[in-house]
């Protein structure tokens, strides 16, 4: 990102090429989307997909580059959402310190990042499939704790009446500003993950994923690298949590329930965890299904439908929709190379 901004105009052609045609088309489409979309499509589909795409992205970072499949990303997001409610204003008459947004948001994201690092530190004590079990246990325990505890989490009802702030003369609760806010943060985290994956740290993390023993023998601190990856994923999930609580205007134990935790995993797996664009793709598919499947199967049986789609994806294409695309693309390329009839 910083590269694109600091490059002088003379080499503009160069960085445009570096960005790639796909990114430019996609970026333009996303920026122009509010021109054609209604408010419903802007927030309920656009904004919501971007928020859950960011949550999926934080999981993709851990699972794709670190080989650690986490089910606690919504818990991390929930911590920052609760922090916003507790540090800022809410109308539940519990806590609510009334901090301004520019103070509450950094603290909320910091809390989420630290919580994520802590979860990471606990779960990297073991390897492989244990991670999924430990993070699920942590997510479930946090959900029950939030439900039981009234002093901090305000129990079953949680916090309501949380408003997105208004600054620079813009009310960020309105559909268009909120969409652009989501888009801006999503693009920022997407670019950061993409850039980070090619950095020294990203390369080291991927090497640790492939062979932790060899990396340890080479003198790398395997645990520290993994925990740092958790911290970074926590920042992205924390930002998504802030957007989520502004989007809903409320946060309750249901927000961080086991269903939600599994939804994030479904989004990442359906989209594909080999590339950072996967989770956003998955989020769009799941949100569209959530919105329109009600007309097909009825609101009650939605979970059966999404569960079935998930099962089919896991069986047919372990790399999700991206994997399907990747499987078709070389095929198409070969077709094109073949001499015509």
């Amino acid at each position, binding site marked *: 990102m910083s590269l694109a901004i600091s490059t002088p105009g003379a080499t503009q052609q160069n960085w445009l090429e570096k960005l790639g045609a796909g990114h430019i088309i996609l970026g333009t489409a996303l920026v122009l989307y509010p021109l054609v979309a209604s408010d419903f499509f802007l927030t309920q589909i656009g904004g919501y997909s971007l928020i859950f795409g960011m949550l999926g992205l934080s999981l993709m970072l851990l699972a794709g580059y670190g080989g650690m499949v986490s089910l606690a990303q919504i818990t991390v997001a929930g911590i920052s959402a609760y922090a916003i409610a507790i540090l800022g204003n809410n109308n539940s008459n519990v806590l609510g310190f009334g901090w301004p947004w520019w103070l509450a948001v950094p603290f909320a994201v910091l809390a989420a990042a630290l919580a994520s690092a802590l979860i990471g530190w*606990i779960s990297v004590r*073991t390897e492989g499939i244990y991670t999924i079990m430990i993070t699920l246990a942590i997510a479930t*325990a946090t959900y029950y704790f939030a439900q*039981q505890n009234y002093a901090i989490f305000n129990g079953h009802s949680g916090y309501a009446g949380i408003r997105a702030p208004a600054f620079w003369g813009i009310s960020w609760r309105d559909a268009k500003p909120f969409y652009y806010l989501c888009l801006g943060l999503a693009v920022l985290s997407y670019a950061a993950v993409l850039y980070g994956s090619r950095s020294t740290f990203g390369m080291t993390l991927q090497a640790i994923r492939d062979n932790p023993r060899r990396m340890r023998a080479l003198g790398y601190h395997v645990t520290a690298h993994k925990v740092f990856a958790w911290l970074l994923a926590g920042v992205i999930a924390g930002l998504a949590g802030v957007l989520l609580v502004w989007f809903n205007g409320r946060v309750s134990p249901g927000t961080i329930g086991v269903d939600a935790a599994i939804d994030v995993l479904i989004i990442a797996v359906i989209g594909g965890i080999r590339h950072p664009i996967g989770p956003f793709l998955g989020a769009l598919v799941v949100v569209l299904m959530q919105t329109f499947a009600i007309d097909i199967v009825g609101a009650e049986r*939605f979970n059966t439908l999404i569960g079935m789609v*998930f099962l089919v994806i896991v069986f047919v294409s372990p790399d999700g929709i991206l994997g399907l695309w990747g499987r078709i693309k070389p095929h198409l390329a070969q077709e094109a190379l073949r001499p015509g009839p």
Partner: protein
Amino acid sequence: MSLLDRPSQALSSGGMTLRQAWGLAGLLAAAVLAWLVFAAWPDWLNAILISKKAFVSAILNGITLAGLYFLVASGFTLIFGLMRNVNLAHGSLYLLGAYIGYEVTNRTGYWLLGVAAGFAVLAIVGVIMQVFVFRRLEGDDLRQTLVSIGISIVAADLMLAVWAGGTYQISTPEWLDGALTLPVITAVRSNGASVFLTYPLYRVVVLAAAIVIGVGLWLMLHKTRVGMMIRAGVDDRAMLQASGVNVHAVFAIVFAVGAGLAGFAGVVGGSALSVAPGEDVRYLLASLVVVIVGGMGSITGAAIGALLIGLAEQIGLVYFPTYGIVLTFVIMVVTLAIRPQGIMGKAR
């Protein structure tokens, strides 16, 4: 140098080894616990621990809950230990067993028939899952886990469709109703008569059933040929296969027993507590924590883990109700910090 130092230090400090010290500490703890349970409490102790009745009830409830957790988690740990298959649909198996037990008991009027049906149907479901789903993804534990998550989502939704969101209670037969008077004095009346603690008979029976099944499982694993194969498979699956054993048959047996036990626990637990949507997540969490704490693939570990978690949950419920779950969480974290493979788990 340090190797030679250590025993002499231990001898000089107290004249006993570390092992003996632990044994002594254990004996002391047992004596204190026995005194807490059987003696009449002085007032200062009642003031600290609310009342003797609350304390002893919490301990007893914790132990019986541990019995239930053990039944659910033992299947989970066996399946994981042998097949490296984290079956996150295990909670759904529990809930399905409970619903089936409810239907059968309600229609036939025989509770025992409901228990048997819960075990049998879920054993069959387990075999079907193993043969048609998990065998296709063998060796890919992440995809197996993802598939089990998918199954649990669909199962929860379909069960909601069939049995709706209501709460059911499986009715127990008359011979299991009533209360048992225990030789535990909770208070002394002013006229000098002692008040003894009474406890529901059914819960004692649940505990007894869990102990019998636990011992049975241990005997099966350690004294029979199939058990020997299962233990060999936990240690080295490829070697077991190479020595001519049909591992898929062994897998099917383990899955049948594991899923059947979850169904059995569902009926038994549904009679003691209640059957409702959401219970699947509760028992999945219990299984996860029990197995993380106790160690994968170990029946003894599952028993120890279940006891710890059951006691922590019930004691937490009485003494710090809104922070109860934190105690469970702390146990898990401390175990992972000190012994990542679990109390009885083998380091791999």
